[in-house]
């Protein structure tokens, strides 16, 4: 499985490199070789055809504005990548990359416009845990909310059980396999069964042979965090 880690040095706020480590670790347990490439430099052209999954960590809005200048040059290929159903996972503030519009206090700028939502910069930063339902899973993480996501349709990722999510109602954005979440943790370290599901989906045409994975530690962690937050 081939993963592209996009601008890991530039978009790097909350330890989200751990998500890539999760894909490598769970992949190894599934006897799947996970190759990770990085694009570090703005001027480097991205070869979208090569990858099964693209990962983007959260970054500062001022850096995201710069990132967009270069990604817009490859918008057509990026859109084709998303429309083809390939995975693109984007965490936290970097949701702004895909927004139609990102509204700041005294100005706004345009995102790539994939996913049908807007982003609004918050005046006051908000941090808390985040728990939501996604498919048949409870997903547990934290969030540092600097940017609200305002969906224009019912394209949310999951329904909130605890926390703020996008704006107090729903969490994240899903369009085909473009997955945008506010969840930190790193979210795939804390919910590694999601990694297993994604790898299985990416390699659905291949026969995977591996021992059942023991998620005892992560399940215990999840139980503690859910209990702690529901008692607040």
């Amino acid at each position, binding site marked *: 499985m081939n993963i592209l880690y996009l601008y890991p040095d530039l978009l790097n706020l909350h330890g989200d490199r751990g998500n890539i480590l999760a894909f490598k670790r769970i992949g190894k347990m599934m006897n799947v070789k996970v190759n990770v490439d990085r694009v570090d430099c703005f001027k480097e052209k991205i070869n979208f055809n090569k990858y099964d999954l693209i990962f983007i960590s959260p970054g500062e809005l001022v850096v995201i504005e710069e990132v967009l200048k270069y990604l817009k040059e490859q918008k057509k290929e990026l859109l084709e990548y998303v429309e083809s159903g390939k995975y693109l996972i984007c965490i936290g503030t970097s949701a702004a990359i895909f927004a139609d519009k990102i509204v700041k206090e005294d100005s706004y700028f345009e995102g790539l416009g994939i996913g049908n939502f807007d982003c609004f910069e918050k005046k006051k*930063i908000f941090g808390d845990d985040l728990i939501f339902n996604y498919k048949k899973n409870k997903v547990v993480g934290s969030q540092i909310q600097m940017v609200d996501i305002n969906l224009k349709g019912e394209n949310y990722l999951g329904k909130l059980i605890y926390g703020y999510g996008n704006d107090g109602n729903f969490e994240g954005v899903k369009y085909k396999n473009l997955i945008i979440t506010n969840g930190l943790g790193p979210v795939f370290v804390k919910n590694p069964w999601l990694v297993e599901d994604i790898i299985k989906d990416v390699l659905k045409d291949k026969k995977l042979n591996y021992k059942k994975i023991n998620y005892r530690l992560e399940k215990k962690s999840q139980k503690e965090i859910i209990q702690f937050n529901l008692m607040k």
Partner: protein
Amino acid sequence: MKTLELLLGKFIILMCKLVDKNKGTNLAGKIMLKLDKNLIKKFKNIDYEKVIVVTGTNGKSTTVNLLNHIFSCGGKKVVSNLEGANLITGIATILLKESPLNFDFKDTYFIFEIDERTLKNFLKNIPAKNLVITNIQKDQVCRNGDPDYIYKIIESVIQKDMTLYLNNHDPRSKILEEKAKNVIYYGVGKNKYSYNKLDEIPVTMPCPKCHSKIEFDYYNVANIGSFKCSNCGYKSEDKVKYIIKDIDYKNNCFNILDEKIVMPYVTNFMLYNYAACYAVSREFKIPKISESFSSFKNVKGRMETLNYNDKEIKYIRIKQENPETLQSALDLVSNDKTEKIVILGLCLLKDFKPYYSNTFYSYDCDFSKLIKSNVKKYICFSNVVSYDTANRLIYENVDRKKIIIINNDNVEEIMSKIDQTKCKNIYLITWIKTYDEITKYLERMN
């Protein structure tokens, strides 16, 4: 200011000290500022050229305490907030406490630690002409979000006529050089503990000028080191006047400018603070600097050694949500190659409500050197987040059998696990509250 106001302020401070000598660093200022919001401006003869403000993410308290010590030993009258009350109410309290009855602060130096978010308010009241910035790093993300947020706050208060003391090796704060006419750089040279990142998927940071990748020739401390932008040419200065060199860790000494300094604590994360203090002291022509360094006693609760039965517990403080202090702790422990037990308590975040379970900052840290440094056992403790802490180690391929998990903050249980181990060399990495509880527990036991 009326004498009555001053006496009332001093009375409140005295009462607070009688109730609890460790408390009351803000209360008098809080009350008196409510009665008179222009209180601070009413003190007389504060020479703004003699006001030195220290701000930044890490190292403020050590820097202020050492500067206060150097200036005092050099025969200067100094007022500082040494107990770390770095909000405007704390500053008001200390001024009330130290003010003579005629409110006249003639010939006095002021060295204050100021929280970045309080800078604007402080400088409105006391427009200091000297600003020391230790570094700008990820910290208290539930309040500050990202380093750019803090950078903007500091940038907005800098005046052209200020003298800035800037860390030559911190990309995020060195960029402030563009904002003031007079800039003095300080730094630490390459040394035996300088390193490059060895972890899987290493990451650096965006350039504050052009947002391209910053590359480091080497790090001395997490995200602090000799750097250059991969694109625009922004970089550390090649030649810096105040640079610590020839560090002798065994004999606790180093050279800076034309002096040899002997210092009770020589650890990499404190060396930048020392360089800043030396730079300020030389610029202000303070005498006897090297003697002052030798006699300095650092703020308690940063690095302490506790004796417990036949064991030695070395405590290294971390700030939660701050990967740099965690990385510094890991690096310090990994320099000890003898067999050891490492106790790691990342703990729930309880500084502000809502309390939450952030341990993700640990994934910004490189654990690889620690793992290779002869750790016999790890003990991961805390309410709620002990399993996440253990998982961080698992992600570094630590054998699960080497990890003991205590799913609470119970000090007795932690000490009981220490009792069960034969190893006498113990490192404790956690926040200050747990350290305080352990010291109280040991005092009760004794």
